């Protein structure tokens, strides 16, 4: 690139740039609407299901060896076999709407 073409001086093709900006904004708007209509990613759905599962208090922890053995609270010496997820490790619980 030659020196005269560097920088943002001597810019030309204003209508072309305006069209490019409009295309970008319209594309963003379309993508936003599409996401809003339920095109959520699989990972987001998994995060939502994981977070929702965490909030279910009736779940029996998988560390319980048998139903007859009482569940022991995980400690540093005996951590839980299943990782504990929280809202801090996943973006947010998302309930898909109509999808």
């Amino acid at each position, binding site marked *: 690139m030659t*020196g005269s073409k*560097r*920088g943002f001086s001597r810019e030309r093709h204003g209508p072309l*740039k305006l069209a*490019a900006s409009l295309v970008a*904004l319209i594309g963003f708007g379309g993508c*936003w609407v599409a*996401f809003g209509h339920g095109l959520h990613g*699989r990972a987001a759905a998994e995060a939502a299901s994981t977070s929702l599962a965490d909030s279910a208090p009736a779940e029996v922890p998988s560390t319980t060896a048998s139903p007859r053995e009482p569940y022991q609270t995980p400690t540093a010496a005996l951590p839980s076999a299943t990782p504990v997820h929280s809202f801090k490790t996943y973006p947010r619980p998302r309930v898909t709407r109509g999808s």
Partner: protein
Amino acid sequence: MSWKLSAFAGLALIAGIATARFVQDPHTGTATWDAARAAGFAAYLLLWASTVLGIAVHMRFRPAGTSLTQVLELHRISGTLALSFLVAHVFALIIDPVVPSSLLSGLVPFTSTYRPIQVGLGALSEWLLVVVLVSTALAGSMRYATWRAAHLLAFPCYLLALAHGITSGTDTGSTPSLLLYAASAATVAAMGVVRIVGRGWVDAAELQP
């Protein structure tokens, strides 16, 4: 022109997202979250377009029926627009009522509580883009070698954005996202190879009377 258009677009995006924040349900609404995702994809695609068009300008390559100045101007506007959408991406995440994001995690790399490394890559990419654009804005008052060195940061900027999108984006698992990332990365890789291998072509072309 590019700065003004991009600033106007950025303000429009922020106004729209802020409006959505107050309109949506504070507990179940996903408008700001969806806006953050859409703005992230838009910023990435614009960054990709700017990178590809920059290589094309360097190689003096232009599609039939277009001039090199048109390609150059599209390269400029896509770069500045990428920054606008990047600001909108960070803004939407900050004002989202559920996601624990902050301005600090959006600006300072590796300070996010959610996937700090992956999100930090995005913050690094963001600052590299700022360096590239500011150095271009000040290109008239700096040595060519200095500007060129700063402008080459566009490549790590794009790669960091790609890594950020793949590793921290919640849509990465979807097929369209994977295809988008694969196709865009392949394009940049192919043009990067052509740029390196074809350096002699440009030099030879410049020697033509």
